């Protein structure tokens, strides 16, 4: 699978969960289910707000510290956008099942101890948001996320959006950024060596992908094509069109 493949998503793929979504982009395929608000166990119960429980399950092998780390990051970011105060003493359970991740053909991977890549985060975030929308969980805003890698090729700096495993291996630093639909920075996680200047560049690149104004996307087909070449996919437009097509399909009888 090529890293530049356009994102694809399907909503309501699982019949028994309150909400579910399947999302694939840049070689990653993730299925998410959301149940909530449901009864919380006593140890998870919070007196004034809902507990957001995120479970990340790797495709192969048992989850370890890396998965727990991803869970904690996702949990704190998603609690920010879900209206948790509306559902005190309850639980919103998000299960993220990684189905497919791009493989590096040049290395044989260790499997029994699964170690999910840092770059899977945007896919997890995006799937979680889609599943939350599908479950009708009230949220302040939606979120879009992207991964950006900086590599040094012959002394020149090269910024790669949605890096492949091989890009990550050669990159100096990898960054994952998420923005809310109000253009606010929701999540910024970085790995590797980088300067403040580089981070600013990454920020601008990611913002261009996640927060492209809706007007720019509508200005004629040629304009959109130019944009696609320059800054990758327009995540916000993607989220919007996915939801629109789902709602249109659900309400076709009206």
């Amino acid at each position, binding site marked *: *699978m090529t890293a530049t493949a356009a994102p694809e998503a399907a909503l309501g793929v*699982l*019949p*028994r*969960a309150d909400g579910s979504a399947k999302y694939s982009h840049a070689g990653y395929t993730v*299925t998410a*289910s959301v*149940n909530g608000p*449901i*009864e919380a*166990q006593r140890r998870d119960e919070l007196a004034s707000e809902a507990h957001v429980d995120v*479970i990340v*399950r790797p*495709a*192969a*092998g*048992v989850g370890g510290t890396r998965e727990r780390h991803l869970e904690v990051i996702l949990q704190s970011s998603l609690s920010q956008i879900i209206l948790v105060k509306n559902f005190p003493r309850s639980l919103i*359970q998000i*299960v993220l*099942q990684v*189905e*497919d991740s791009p*493989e590096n*053909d*040049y*290395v*044989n*991977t*260790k*499997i*029994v101890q699964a170690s999910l890549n840092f770059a899977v985060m945007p896919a997890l975030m995006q799937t979680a948001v889609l599943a939350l929308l599908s479950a009708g969980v009230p949220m302040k805003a939606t979120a879009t996320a992207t991964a950006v890698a900086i590599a040094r090729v012959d002394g020149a700096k090269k910024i790669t959006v949605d890096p492949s495993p091989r890009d990550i291996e050669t990159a100096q630093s990898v960054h994952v950024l998420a923005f809310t639909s109000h253009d606010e920075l929701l999540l910024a996680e970085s790995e590797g060596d980088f300067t403040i200047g580089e981070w600013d560049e990454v920020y601008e690149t990611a913002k261009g992908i996640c927060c492209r104004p809706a007007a720019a996307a509508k200005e004629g087909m040629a304009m959109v094509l130019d944009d696609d070449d320059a800054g990758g996919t327009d995540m916000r437009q993607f989220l919007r069109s996915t939801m629109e097509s789902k709602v249109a399909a659900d309400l076709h009888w009206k």
Partner: protein
Amino acid sequence: MPREAEPSLNEKQFVAQALQENLRLDGREFDQYRPLELSFGDQYGVADVTLGRTRVLAKATAEVTVPYADRPLDGVFTIATELSPMASPSFEVNRPTETEVLLSRLLEKTVRRSGALDTESLCLVAGQKCWSVRVDVHVLAHDGNLIDASCAAVVAALRHFRKPDTSMDAGVLTVYTPAEREPVPLSWLHSPFCVTWSFFGEEGDIAVLDATWLEEQVRVGSCTVSLNKHGEICQIAKLGGTPVDAVALLQCTNVALARVKEFSDMLDAKLAEDAKRRDKGGFMAELRAENDR
């Protein structure tokens, strides 16, 4: 976690009485399966089985490890079944339920203990290096008959799987990456499938194939027969307290054989179709690294 809501008394009676009148809620015959769909992923060893609304994803992987000290000539083969809250919120992470234990036991008996995978072929250096093949079963949606769906997914994933090629040269073991050499399939001996019968009625006299989740909650007993297309039975598990007539069970195994033959044919056809899809330009035969037996 919230407990699974049991069907109400009315629901239970409705299902039971409909079965007495030879009717099933979804209009199927008693010995009819829901449509079984099987698809393979982009990678080797990923099988997605959909049985009605039940959906199971199996992924096979392999890595080089040290064999167990008491079995120096055998490789390691494990099947991991962990039911996540995705299947139902009543399942909890790291706390196996009865369903999960039964499922993993049955898969173990059907696939591992029946010798479907030749574990001796996984040995690389006796007592030092061997392949560890692992199948992860992910239940995405649970609407009854997890066992049959999971077993089909595991068998399909393993038959689709390719492990990296290796070579031994003057005591040095080389494991080739997919970029260097085309991966090789596992040494597979036979394909067992599970067929689960559910029994209803006070005497267990109504036998039904491929029960849905609602039917599973109402049944008085169940019997899982695992066999391959040659009619070799790997295991029979009869669960639930109600005794079932021996002649009825014999009849069940006969029907099971017919179903298993259908599954086998379908799996063979799907594997051939997938091989054709991957064989772009017809170079696969030349790229192949393994020798014919």
